[in-house]
Every structure is written in C-alpha cells, then in structure tokens.
C-alpha cells in the first residue's frame, strides 16, 4: 500500500501537504496518475481542434451547412433531423455506463462480470465506430463533402468535420483495442495473479474521456 487515506489531511492544507512534503504527491497508483496527465494533454489537443473550428466558422463569409439537415435520416418516410447522431450519442453513453460498472466489479475482484461488462463496452464502441463509418461514407459519397470544399456551404465545414470526428473516432478505435486486451487479461486471471485490478480503472478513465469529448463535439459541432 502506497498510502493510508485516513491519515491524510483534507482541503487546502492537504494540498499544501501533498505537494510540499517529501513524498509521492498524488496518493493514487502511478498508472492512474499518468492516465490523468495523459487525458489532460488530450484535453488540450481536442480543445485546439474545437477552437480552430470556432475560429474558421466565425471567419467564413459563406453560410455554414445546416447540420440538423446534413445529419438527418429518413426512416419509414419520416425525415428525422440528427437521428444518427442521437443514436450514436446514446450508444456511447451506454458504453460509458457499462464501463463504470465494469470498474465497480473490478474493485470487487469479480473476474467474470468485469470481463463481460468490458467486452460489452468494447462491442458498443465498435458499434459507434461502425455508425461513424456509415456517416462518413454518406457524407463523402452521397453529399460530396471533401476536406477542401463541399456543395452545402462553407468550405471549412469538411476539414473541421473530418479532423474532429476523425480524431475522436481514432480514440474510440484505440479504446476498443485497449479494452479488449484488458478484458481478455481480466478473463484469463492476469490481474488476480498480479494482485490488483487497477488497470481496469485506468482503462475506464480513458473510455469515459472518449465519452466526455463526444459531449463537447455533440454540443459544438452538431447542435450549434
């Protein structure tokens, strides 16, 4: 055990003690601290993308394509705006829910349930990437959207869209591989032998971050 929470001071006195005392600053497993630092750096990357999107959208003199219409689906003769994006959002939130429960069962060292919930999370992630592939295909093939221009309006729409959703999709794809590997190791009893399930929690942090980024993309890119 690297720490004993009961003896640590709370509040700002605790912050001073944690940062100035001759000891480990963050009393959490190192993998968790490093994942948080990585996610902080990733926050800056995604923020740069979203800020550049804001900048080009503000500065273009051409009208911005109406995203509600661009991402609409026609189901049974009904034209429903943003339907695909709404489904993708629900799928990603659900995957975050199953991941949170996987972490919880990991704490209890429930090998089977942890692995099941993680595989479910990975499957939902795969589902999300599949829908994204469908969305990209529709935009590229049917609508003729390109990074350098499109028939719907401002040319910057394509580059912003492909850059932001592409980078997010890459994160989801990487996450699916990551979760599958960790879930496999859970199932094989690797973490029981290692003596700790903290890797499951670290993987969970990454996956929740992917969901978190989507919350911002959904608000700024699709709804704005």
């Amino acid at each position, binding site marked *: *055990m690297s720490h*004993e*929470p009961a003896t*640590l001071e709370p*509040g700002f006195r*605790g*912050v001073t003690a*944690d*940062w100035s005392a001759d000891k480990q600053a*963050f009393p959490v497993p190192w993998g968790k*601290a490093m994942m*948080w*630092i990585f*996610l*902080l750096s990733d926050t*800056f990357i995604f*923020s*740069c993308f979203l*800020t550049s999107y*804001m*900048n*080009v959208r*503000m*500065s*273009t*003199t051409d009208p911005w394509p109406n995203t*509600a219409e661009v991402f609409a689906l026609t189901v049974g003769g009904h034209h429903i*705006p*943003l339907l695909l994006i709404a489904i993708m*959002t*629900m799928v990603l*939130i*659900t995957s*975050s*829910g199953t991941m*949170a*429960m996987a972490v*919880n*069962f990991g*704490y*209890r*060292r*429930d090998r*089977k349930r942890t692995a*099941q919930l993680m595989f*479910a999370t990975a499957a939902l992630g795969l589902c999300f990437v599949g829908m994204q592939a469908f969305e990209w295909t529709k935009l590229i093939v049917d609508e003729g959207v390109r990074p350098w221009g499109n028939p719907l309006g401002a040319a910057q729409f394509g580059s912003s869209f492909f850059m932001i959703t592409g980078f997010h999709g890459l994160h989801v794809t990487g996450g699916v591989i990551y979760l599958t590997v960790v879930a496999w190791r859970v199932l094989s009893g690797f973490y029981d032998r290692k003596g*700790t*399930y*903290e890797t499951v929690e670290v993987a*969970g*942090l990454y996956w*929740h971050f992917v*969901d*978190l980024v989507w*919350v*911002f993309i*959904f*608000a700024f890119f699709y*709804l*704005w």
Partner: protein
Amino acid sequence: MAVRQHDIETDVPVDHSSAHAAGHGAHAEGQQHPIKLYLWIWLLLFVFSAFSYMVDYFQLQGALRWTLIIVFMLIKASFIVAIFMHMAWERLALKLAILVPPLALLILIALMAIEGDYTFLTRLASFVK
C-alpha cells in the same frame, strides 16, 4: 486498502439484469459505490442528451438555444468527470492538478474569437462584393 465510500455490504440490488451484486471478493479494493449510483447517472445522461436533442428538434434559436446547449453540455460533462471518472472522491491536490490547467483554454478561446471576428470583417471589407 481502506474502503473509502459505501461499504459493499450495503449494496442495493436493483432490477437490472447485469447489475446484481455477485459474490463479493475477499479483498475489495479501491472505491466502493452501489451500482445504483451508476445506473442513476446513466439515466440522467440519457435525459440530458434527450434535452439537448430537443433543443435542436424544436428549432429553438438565439440566446436561448446556446444557453441551453451549453448548460446541458456542462451538466453531462460534470456527471462523467465527477461520478464515472471518480473525480469527486479524489484528493484536492489531484483535482486541482487536472481541472485548473484547462481554464487556460478560456484565454485561447477568447483570443481566437477576437481573431475570427477580425478575419471575418477583413474578408467582408476586401473580398466580398
């Protein structure tokens, strides 16, 4: 390691197929929260996503639109970070180290907004007939 929050024995079984607490391991570690908490947050995320979708569906416009979008977005983001990522139960030193640096982004956003406006006006003045 100390059990920090709710003891697992107080776990409330809920009527979700995958949510029944299975055999508790002999060495529970990390933070223990009832599964019910996660299901609640999950439900709330669904509800707030539906609200955001409704903002677009009913074509609300202007200040009302972007206020609602941003409020719902921040509520969802807070739930994910605080509960799913367990930030609410971390020590203040870690909270500050992770949550304070992104505030610098507000300056970047402000600068780029000013720049965007300037570019827009320059384009209007010079390139658009």
